[in-house]
């Protein structure tokens, strides 16, 4: 299993599931994203372990952007996703149906091209997709 980055895993085939890389504190149980160097509750060294998180969550809030930086489609949706494991994660929302995006909507992780760079290369990152939607 190859780790594609420090923050997420992108599977090479459809049999494996993508995930975000978080950290879990073995002392207090807190889970963090992005993964931390130490737990803010316990403030001790070496209490953290890497964990796979982020498959599912719900939309804590969102905005439809009608003005976007270069490389992003207009309009597109940005959201804060409350992961089932606890962390609140910023994400682009991958949806064809912008008008039906709603607070508390259930979403699922997907990894793919987030935007194009100045040279036209695809930049890969995490996105969330409404459950059952497209």
């Amino acid at each position, binding site marked *: 299993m190859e780790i594609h980055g*420090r*923050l997420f895993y992108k599977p090479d085939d459809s049999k494996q599931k993508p995930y975000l890389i978080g950290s879990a504190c073995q002392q207090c149980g807190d889970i963090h994203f*992005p993964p931390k160097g130490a737990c803010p509750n316990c403030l001790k060294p070496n209490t953290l372990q890497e964990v796979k998180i982020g498959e599912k969550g719900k939309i*804590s*809030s*969102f*905005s*439809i*952007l*009608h*003005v*976007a*930086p*270069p*490389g*992003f489609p207009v309009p*597109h949706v*940005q*959201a*804060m996703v*409350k992961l089932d494991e606890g962390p*609140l994660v*910023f*994400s*682009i929302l991958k949806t064809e149906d912008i008008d039906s995006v709603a*607070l508390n909507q259930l979403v699922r992780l997907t990894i793919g091209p*987030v*935007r194009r760079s100045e040279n036209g290369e695809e*930049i890969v*990152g995490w996105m969330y997709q409404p459950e059952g939607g497209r």
Partner: protein
Amino acid sequence: MVNDVAVLGIGMHPFGKFENKHLKDLANTAIWNAIEDAGIHASKIQAAYVGNCLGGLLVGQESVRGQVILRHAGFKGIPIVNVENACATASTAFRMAWLSVKSGLHDVVLAVGVEKMFVGNTAKSIEALSTATDIEVCGNMGLQFTSIYAMNIRKKMDRYGWTKEDLGLVAEKNSYNGSLNPYAQFKKPLSKEEVLASKMIADPITLFMASPMGDGAAAAIVCNEKIARQLKKGNPIIRVAASELSSGHASMLESTPKESTTYTTALKAYEQAGVGPEDIDLAEVHDAMSPAELKIYEELGLCNEGDAIKLIREGRTKISGDIPVNPSGGLASRGHPVGATGLAQIAEVVWQLRGEAGKRQVRSGDGKLPRFGLTQNDGGYVEGDQAASCIHILSRV
């Protein structure tokens, strides 16, 4: 023993678009206006804290911005510290100046905040702004501060019943205030209908609710209060009653007002000043998108949770109201050259406390000048919360 600290002088360069002006020019105007206002010889200044946020990315000046700016302004030899703390840069520079007088190390210190955002490349400026986050996490994702604010405001609309009209009302109030401010970037009063009809940029934020890019500078001279008393010869002086700085510890989106970083920082400031929110006569707050002001009313304790819309609907935060907020026009109207904003807020409160705010002068029902003014300046975005929260309380004594 610690010294009481007074604001002896303040100065600004107007906020706006000044294509032919360099960082050095903008800062020079603010610095010399502050020195003139202080009524001291510049040789009395013993140290300087120079705030700037984006000069590295936008004009390529790194490492020694403060020294370059102050050499241009005629200074040499004094200790100069470069200060960078996202949109809270200038208030942080002010706090460092306060600290160096408070501690007894210096008697007279200069704080400057300056920013040059119009560099002929809007995309570059917008990208520079978005680096005030953890760029490993958000850098490739197109996170915009418009979007951060929009998501917070949408959540509050859902939770507390804020309407689009309420959002428009804040911008209406602040654009009117800005129209009275000679230093403001925008001087056109807008109706809430015009605000709501302007281009949607990040739903529910429209263009006229958003702070613009800008060039500008602001400066303050702080001193040991004993020196201010000698110079002012019995006239009122402006004391720094509280200075507080925190980094984020809460969730901008999900915390209740009393769990917020702004609230916990404000609470410490109230304690330091020996006052409560009910004693504050006016506030300059960080409304990078004007409707954010509503959230800040509650987080500063100016009203209870859920009551912010009453304050705006009843006109209580207008200049003529009982708790005026952003009489300068706030970030969206006065402008938001990021590394200068915090000191512009402080300048406004000083003018207001002295009774020098002209057409936008705040007075109580019986005509008295305000006594306590608060500034709240936020910076950056890390792990779902503001990266920096800087709050000052100034009082006329």
